[in-house]
């Protein structure tokens, strides 16, 4: 189906330029391609661990695009490569983290990959125990309020993690103080092997917002534009001083939970195949092409460009030095 130049495409209706729409795609593809590389490196024994964003890219990039990296703060979780790339992390950063090298900007090689953090990129340092970042986001919003700074604190987590007490306590706190927080749940219907109906009692995670006096929204997480729209609305609410929003982006994790997992035990291949047909990398590219702002040739070129970038990043990271062993003793306290 071809559109005439006068027919507005969806991104234009949302106020996004063609270049923006393509930039979103670029980040999604960068995230995916890095992730694929990480798996290769893991399977070839070069890095001990990978935890994936595959299938979540549209949700992550769509959401991060609605934020302002110079104004807002993000408190992502381990899958959120799409968020941290949009906030300025590079393929090299990610590879340095994968190889656990000294230069890793997240942690100097101290943490596993997927444990993001960068003060100058407004990415608050994260840990492994799930959901602990959710009250931190509320604290960032509270602090900014106190200092008279307008910003949005964005935090994301899986639907499994919305069952932790910290989610509840944080939402309630934010609700009471009408804080500018976006609670972004990437609902991929599994917490490792545990399926949605065994981990979440409500039909939607978004239903939980009713308990905190702010809106809960369900959005198709395979559609970056729909996610962008929902998050942008939440940002506007937050900046108007109207408080928090809980957004549930429905996605699917296309690969096992992590490099240590084998998902064949708990998910049928048919289910995974069906989800792959809705892979946002495919559907969004199709959208761009249909909108006549993107071509197969451009796509090929972009893929090559990103691969080059990732190849360089990998080579750099692989040969970069580890921290000296005694470095382990540093930064327990201020020095």
């Amino acid at each position, binding site marked *: 189906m071809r559109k005439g130049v006068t027919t507005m495409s969806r991104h234009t209706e949302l106020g996004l330029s063609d270049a923006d729409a393509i930039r979103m795609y670029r980040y999604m593809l960068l995230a995916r391609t890095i992730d694929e590389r990480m798996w290769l490196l893991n399977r070839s024994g070069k890095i001990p661990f990978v935890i994936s964003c595959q299938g979540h890219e549209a949700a992550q990039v769509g959401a991060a695009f609605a934020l302002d990296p110079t104004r807002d*703060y993000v408190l992502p979780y381990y899958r959120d490569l799409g968020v941290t790339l949009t906030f300025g992390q590079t393929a090299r950063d990610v590879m340095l983290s994968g190889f656990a090298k000294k230069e890793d900007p997240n942690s100097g090689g101290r943490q596993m990959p997927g444990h993001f953090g960068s*003060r100058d990129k407004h990415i608050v340092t994260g*840990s492994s125990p799930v959901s602990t970042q959710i*009250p*931190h986001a509320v604290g*960032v919003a509270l602090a900014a309020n*106190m200092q008279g700074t307008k910003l949005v604190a964005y935090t994301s987590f899986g639907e499994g993690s919305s069952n932790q007490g*910290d989610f509840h306590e944080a939402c*309630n706190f934010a609700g009471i103080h009408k804080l500018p927080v976006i609670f972004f749940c990437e609902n991929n219907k599994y917490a490792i092997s545990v399926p949605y109906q065994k981990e979440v009692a409500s039909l939607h995670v978004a239903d939980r917002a009713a308990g905190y006096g702010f809106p809960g929204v369900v959005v198709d997480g395979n559609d970056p534009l729909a996610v962008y729209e929902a998050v942008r609305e939440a940002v506007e609410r937050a900046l108007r001083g109207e408080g928090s929003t809980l957004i549930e982006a429905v996605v699917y994790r296309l690969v096992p939970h992590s490099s240590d997992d084998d998902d064949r035990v708990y998910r049928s291949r048919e289910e995974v195949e069906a989800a792959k047909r809705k892979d946002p990398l495919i559907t969004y590219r199709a959208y761009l092409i249909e909108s006549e702002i993107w071509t197969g040739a451009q796509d090929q070129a972009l893929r090559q460009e990103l691969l080059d970038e990732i190849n360089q990043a990998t080579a750099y990271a692989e040969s970069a030095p580890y921290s000296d062993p005694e470095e382990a003793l540093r930064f*327990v306290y201020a020095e």
Partner: protein
Amino acid sequence: MATKLYIEAIREAMTQEMRADANVFVMGEDVGVRGGVFRATQGLYEEFGEARVIDAPLAESAIAGVAIGAAAYGMKPIAEIQFADFIMPAINQIVSEAAKMRYRSNNDWHCPLVVRAPYGGGVHGALYHSQSVEAMFYHVPGLKVVTPSTAYDAKGLLIEAIRDPDPVLFFEHKGLYRMVKDEVPDEAYTLPIGKAAIRRTGDDITVITYGLMAHYALEVAEELEKDGISTYLLDLRTVAPLDKAAILAAARATGKVLVIHEDNKTGGVGAEVSAIIAEEALFDLDAPIMRLCGPDIPAMPFSPTMERFYMLNPEKVANAMRQLAAF
């Protein structure tokens, strides 16, 4: 110099730091209009308003977690846990997050948080309003744990804790709030975290302790002096980091060491104090390293007979000190 109650010193430390630094704020259950269930924050709400003296919902993990987020952003939160017993729901935030934020980010982020909590027994608080909880934290690198015994120390150490760029747990013995009064300068001052105080020197026995027990030990030491038993008394003031040099010097001063704490014995702070001495000053000892502690029971009962059984008192302290002196 004016004498002030322990609790007044604490209140004054917070008030002065809040005046001096707009980033300092207080958050906890009932800390606002009510001024805290012990009145430690009394007057703060009136002076600084509800935006800086936040009555938090009844959710300790959020109190810690929100404070951690605010601290990471650049504020200096003082979170109050109403009773130290109720810090348990916040342990994940304190141990997994506050304690590890600087380390895990390779010094990119840090967490200048103070958590205040009243601890200790002997006040009819029963099983869940009497516990000592310092031993669950002094083992955790990344945390500092302060347990002052005097009003002077409380003020100086609390101001230091608020200014510290890393997380500090500040445990206030609730029995001392209105029992102890000593000279406290009106102006702000700091005392270093991690430095013990020599309360008296002596030749016969060494007592190492902290909190309420520092008072009992001092009282008893003065009494024993009359019987010719001279006591070297070290008040740890900070249980993490421990003042190793002061502990070793104290042990060497007399060669006979008694470690005292209210907390139950097994795995308490006294274990580490004893182990440090046994590792680094063993040949300076003339007697086994004794410990006088609470019994290993889940907590202090409500009934006065059983509460008294649990609690140390000057008499039990005197017995142990005399026993060591006689060794």
